[in-house]
Structure formats: C-alpha cells, structure tokens
C-alpha cells in the first residue's frame, strides 16, 4: 500500500499534477487530486468537469496537468469519460492497442458538477458499467462562481443564494446524500473519504482501481477557506473534525457490503465543527439554538444508519478475509 513516503516519492518521480496553478491559498482540491493520482500505478487519463479545478489549473497558455486531460462541459464529464473508456476498449479489441497495458480513467468533478449538474451523466455512466473512477471533491457549494448553494451545502449554511439574515437562517434544506445515490446503482465500489485522511483516501483509490471491473465512485470532502470562511491553515483540521464529529463518515461499499474505515472514538458535538466556520456563525445566536439541535439530530440519525449497515456486514468481511486473501488489502481495515 502507498504510505506517505511512497506518495511523496511518486510525486517527484512522475509529476502528474503540479503547482503554479491559481487555486486559492489553502485550497483542499489539489490535495485530493495529488493523493488520488499518486495512488494509481497505471498511466491515467483525467476527465475534468467544469469547476474550480478545471478553471484554475488550465489558464491558457499554461496547464498544471502532465497527463492526458479532457474537459468538455459542466454536465457531461461522466459521458465524456464513458466515451473515452469505450474507445480505449474498442481499440484494444481491434488490436490497435496492446491489451496488457491498462489505463485508469479518472474523472474529477466538484459538488456542483456532480451532485447537481452532472448527476444525470454520472448516473448513466454508473448504470452502463464503464470502468472508470469518479472522484467528487465536495466543498459544499458552487465556490468557483461565488459561493452559491448546491445540493451538497449543509443545512443552515450561509451562502450568497441562501443568505442568513433577519428572515432566513441560511440553507433551509438538508444536504443530498450523493454517496447513497451512487450506492443505489449497485456498482462494485463506492467510498467516502476526506482530505484529512490521506491514507484512507489512498487505500480507497488503490482498491477501486486495481483490477477494475466496473465503475467506482469516491466522494471526498474537501474544504474551501473562502466559502467556509475559515483560516487557510485550518483546512486539514476542519476536514478532520467533520469526520470526527460524525458529520462525514468514512466508509466504503464493496459489492453492496458496507464497511466503516474510520470510527471516531469520542462523541464530539457537531457544534465544534460549525463554530470554526464563518458560514455557520449566525447559528450561534440565541434565537437559532433550535437549529443546532436539529443539525445534531440529523447527523446522529445519518451516522446511526451507516453504522448499523456496517455492523451488519462485519461478519461478511470477516468470512471473506478468512477465505480470500485478495481482499485483505490493508490490515488496518480488519
């Protein structure tokens, strides 16, 4: 398994994605991209949905990418990936390309391009079973266009299209559970990870892309210091706190079986996470006390749902580990 030193070494050996891009100070997205690309052994082709990542890394005439890279539009990143992947397999079938040199197709999309605009093409590609990895870097709003709410924005967050003030308390709806939507497609691998847990993310990418038999989907919590309104230096610790407060459970679903990959030890209230971010500042006014309770109740309910599913699948993974050595990719999972 890649550990942090092999990741660091991979970066110098093969520069797939480099600096000099114009993403913001303290942005979480490059951390996602680097960990994902450095964890894949085969050559990669990257398909990029519109978003911060696409806009800030490919300002003409420069590019931060050192791999074949394709961008078409906001809504069709998965459709473009489907075409590229199918063309690759067709060329192998025709004998134009050798069949012993696999290529991994990776699609990056933000939460706007995945949860909202690209959902139909993602759903289609997952349903058709194309062999590609879709990585959604979820920073919980349309950060590129000026922090508008998306369906990934959590309840109560202050954005420019769900402003908090005297009438409104921020976004009035709960966030969409995209990971659950991906799971409903019954694809071989779905995972949820965060930038703070690089080993977890790296393991998931490695597992998803080794001997790929179908689509894999990863939902990775990123941060945005501009939209979340926190100090740039806190990017990692805030993402970690989202995991530790059980707002963002780290789990994976392999062939329909749930497995928790990180279990927070302490029961930290969600308030601790909300307090660090300017977008939730208004929730700490006395009149909004009820909203905090509502958020905590929702987080607890969602965590319990996933925890129960993972608990009931524990015997499955135990039996599998005893019978099949291949799945034992990481001893820390046991």
């Amino acid at each position, binding site marked *: 398994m890649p550990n*942090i*030193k092999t*990741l660091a*070494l991979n970066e110098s050996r093969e520069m797939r994605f480099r*600096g000099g891009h114009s993403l913001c100070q303290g942005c979480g997205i*490059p*951390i996602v991209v680097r960990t994902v690309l450095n964890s894949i052994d085969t050559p990669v082709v990257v398909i990029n949905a519109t978003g911060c990542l696409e806009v800030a890394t490919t300002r003409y005439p420069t590019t931060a990418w050192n791999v074949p890279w394709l961008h078409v539009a906001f809504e069709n990143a998965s459709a473009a990936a489907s075409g590229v992947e199918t063309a690759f397999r067709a060329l192998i079938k025709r004998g134009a390309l050798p069949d012993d040199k696999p290529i991994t197709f990776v699609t990056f999309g933000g939460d706007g391009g995945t949860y909202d605009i690209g959902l139909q093409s993602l759903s289609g590609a997952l349903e058709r079973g194309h062999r590609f990895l879709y990585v959604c870097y979820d920073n919980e709003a349309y950060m590129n266009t000026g922090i508008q709410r998306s369906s990934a924005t959590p309840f109560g967050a202050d954005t420019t299209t769900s402003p908090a003030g005297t009438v409104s308390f921020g976004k009035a709806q709960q966030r969409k559970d995209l990971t659950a939507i991906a799971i409903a497609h019954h694809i071989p691998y779905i995972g949820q990870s965060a930038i703070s847990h690089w080993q977890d993310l790296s393991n998931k990418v490695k597992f998803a892309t080794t001997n790929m038999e179908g689509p894999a989907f990863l939902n990775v919590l990123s941060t945005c210091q501009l939209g979340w309104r926190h*100090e740039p*230096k806190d*990017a990692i610790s805030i993402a970690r706190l989202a995991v530790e407060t059980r707002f963002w459970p780290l789990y994976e679903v392999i062939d329909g079986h749930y497995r928790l990959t990180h279990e927070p030890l302490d029961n930290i209230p969600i308030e601790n996470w909300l307090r660090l971010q300017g977008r939730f500042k208004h929730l700490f006014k006395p009149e909004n006390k009820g909203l905090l309770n509502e958020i905590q109740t929702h987080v607890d309910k969602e965590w319990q749902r996933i925890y129960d599913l993972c608990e009931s699948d524990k015997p499955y993974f135990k039996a599998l580990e005893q019978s099949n050595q291949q799945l034992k990719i990481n001893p820390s999972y046991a």
Partner: protein
Amino acid sequence: MLDNIKRYEQGDAALLVKREWCKGCNICVEACPSDILTLDDADKIKVTDMSKCVFCGICAARCPDFCITLERPESNLISNNSYETYTRK
C-alpha cells in the same frame, strides 16, 4: 521502493522547496511534526532547522501548491535552480 523509504529514514534524502509557488497558507507549518517550517516576511515558506527534519513527507503530501517535494539526493531536480535544496548533511 522499500529501500528508498529506508534511506529516507536514515536521512539520506533532500527536501526541495519551490518558494515561488508558495501562497502562504500555513498548512505545512501546522502539519510539520518537528516544527521546522515557518513563513518569512514575504509570506513564503522557510525551513528553519534542517537537522530536526525526519523526512516524514507530511508537508509534501499536504501542500496544496506543490512547493515541497521529498527527493533522493542524486535526483536531477536538485540541480534545477528553481528548487531550494535542504539536506541533513
């Protein structure tokens, strides 16, 4: 690969810093277990005491701007002038 890791642990490695890319977010300063990274007056990354570096690579894995890279001393990146090179020797 394992050999390379062993060599890192023995200090046979170099920390390459490309200050020109640094945006001064302080993420590496927060992450460094040896507390040897800091920002200078121009808000760019600076290595203070290389003798304390354990070559853990956490700064290289965290930096959003790819300013920091771990390398073997013989790498051709080291002769590249755009990187500042730090070794323990």
